């Protein structure tokens, strides 16, 4: 600091130079990863339900659903059809914990402690979100490996698998934003969990996740058109099957799987922006007016 008082206060070791934006992101990234490792329960619970779905659906509905899939969509085994959907389910389930983490921080005073520190506030939330995205990427990878073990085929190989993870991350952002918005608005852990979980099943079932849309009632088809899950699942599935599987937006401009992936990614990015803006607005309002 260029203060003339600097000499007089030389004994005081306030170090401003050490705080950089990237440094602040890193500090918070580390903290939230540490907390995730400390709390394996959260990690496991958000994986267990999708895994149960993956195993039970393929075992119980495999034969019936497989026929429906062949009739109304790509000619692949149900495992292969289901794995992209479960990947999106993992993203959805894990995104809820982002808001829960924020509520916990508000409740135990860490939110205020961080606000009163010189850390850049944008960097603080970036670091936290990055840690959550990292965790989602790990969890989706686990699902992909498990799916392959169960007999799913990834037509595009490792590159396709990376693509599925990337789509899962892109998809998760809007729900991460949504759960943080819930957290700021309710400031209550139970409400945040219930609010976010309540939406999970309708979102999953009223989409192209478990069966091809053409085999579903028309009201579901209509709803699915406005459901972000449809776009996430279709993009992931197109990448996994290397085929254009999306029916809610039909285009042939890009060729092959890209006819699904490009429009779906565009839609997801738009939704992310909208929800992200809302979360940023609510968070900055909460930050500037303190925890009232």
């Amino acid at each position, binding site marked *: 600091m260029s203060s003339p*008082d600097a000499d007089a*206060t030389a004994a*005081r070791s306030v*170090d401003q130079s050490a*705080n950089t934006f990237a440094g602040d992101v890193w500090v918070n990234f580390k*903290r939230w990863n540490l907390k995730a490792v400390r709390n394996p329960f959260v990690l496991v619970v958000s994986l267990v339900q999708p895994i149960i779905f993956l195993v039970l659906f393929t075992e119980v509905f495999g034969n019936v659903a497989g026929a429906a899939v062949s009739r109304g969509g790509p000619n692949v085994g149900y495992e292969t059809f289901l794995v992209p959907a479960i990947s999106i389910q993992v993203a959805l389930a894990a995104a809820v914990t982002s808001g829960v983490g924020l509520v916990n921080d508000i409740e135990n*005073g860490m939110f205020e*402690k961080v606000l009163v520190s010189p850390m850049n506030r944008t960097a603080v939330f970036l670091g936290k979100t990055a840690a959550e995205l990292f965790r989602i990427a790990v969890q989706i990878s686990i699902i992909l490996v498990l799916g392959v073990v169960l007999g799913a085929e990834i037509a595009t190989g490792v590159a396709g698998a990376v693509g599925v993870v990337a789509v899962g991350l892109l998809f998760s952002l809007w729900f991460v934003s949504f759960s943080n918005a819930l957290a700021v608005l309710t400031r209550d852990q139970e409400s945040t969990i219930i609010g976010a979980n309540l939406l999970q099943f309708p979102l999953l079932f009223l989409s192209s996740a478990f069966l091809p849309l053409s085999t579903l009632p028309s009201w579901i088809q209509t709803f699915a058109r406005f459901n972000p899950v449809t776009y996430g699942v279709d993009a992931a599935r197109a990448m996994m099957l290397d085929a254009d599987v999306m029916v809610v937006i039909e285009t042939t401009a890009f060729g092959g799987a890209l006819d699904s992936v490009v429009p779906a990614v565009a839609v997801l990015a738009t939704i992310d922006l909208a929800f992200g803006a809302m979360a940023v607005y609510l968070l900055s309002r909460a930050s500037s007016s303190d925890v009232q």
Partner: protein
Amino acid sequence: MERTASDGTGESATGNAIDADELRLVYGDGTVAVADVSLSVPEGEFFGFLGPNGAGKTTSIKVFATLLSPTDGTVRVNGFDVRADSRQIRETIGYMAQETSIDPEMTARENIQFACEAYGVPRTERDDRIAELLDLVDLADEADKRAEEFSGGMKKRLDAATALVHEPPLVFLDEPTTGLDPKARNRLWDYFRAINDRGTTIFLTTQYLEEADQLCDRLAVILDGEIVADGSPVDLKRRVGGDVLEVGLDGGSEARDRAAVVAREFGAFESATVEETADGISVTAATARQHGTDLLVRLRDEGLTVTGFNVRAPTLDDVFLAITGDHVEELDGASGPATPAEATAQEGDR
């Protein structure tokens, strides 16, 4: 305030750590938490901010710490404006909130480590600083246990450690020793004194008037969002108007009533204040020491049985009673800090 440099260089033209001029803060729901507070805290001072719950202590601290933006008035902290230069202020203050603020999922060491990183304590100094602070708050043996296993007092001590990692020139302590046992409290007092001796300005609020008396160079009393008295502890006690004679009596409330009448009519005291206490009466008067025994003799002559007596200098409790009147009960009645669950609903405690 016009004298102060407004270019954000942080030059404190006044030599004050805090300059608040007509600070006013009104919450969104219309609650006037701070009506009109003007105060200056010179660099290096150990300043105490007292007042009953809901008087505006915590709200004022939150404005100084840049957590709340003032509705009106000018506030400069370490020479920086709270509205324009909040980041510079955050770099140069330590803040210990009223509600204990630690991450229960991390160990004591990790909590302090995180604070070091948040405040940019140089990497080379971190390990030493962490060890020093753990030792200071007596948590060295528990350093690698998760904070969720700690008792309330241990959590509070850990919180104190995290507020001091960057050795800031100005530290805000909002009821730092609430809920601590006497040993832990004394330990923290020693440290607060030590960092104050090194030149650190300390802004303290407390429920314990004894704590304020022990530690503070100067005190201000806030009531309903306005400062109603300030001065050194000795100054404030002098304003009570003399020493206090406490007399214990047999015979219940009837005896106390009679004794109070006798004391009020007792000619040797000029302008005495007489109050009935739980087991007798208390008389505050300038000449309580000189003529105290005369009063005792008079009471015996009136047929009252004196079971005990004591002449003492006034304490801050007496000051408080005199200044805040009815409000003092709220202060005494207040126990530990609000639990996190209550924190959202405790509008009245700001």
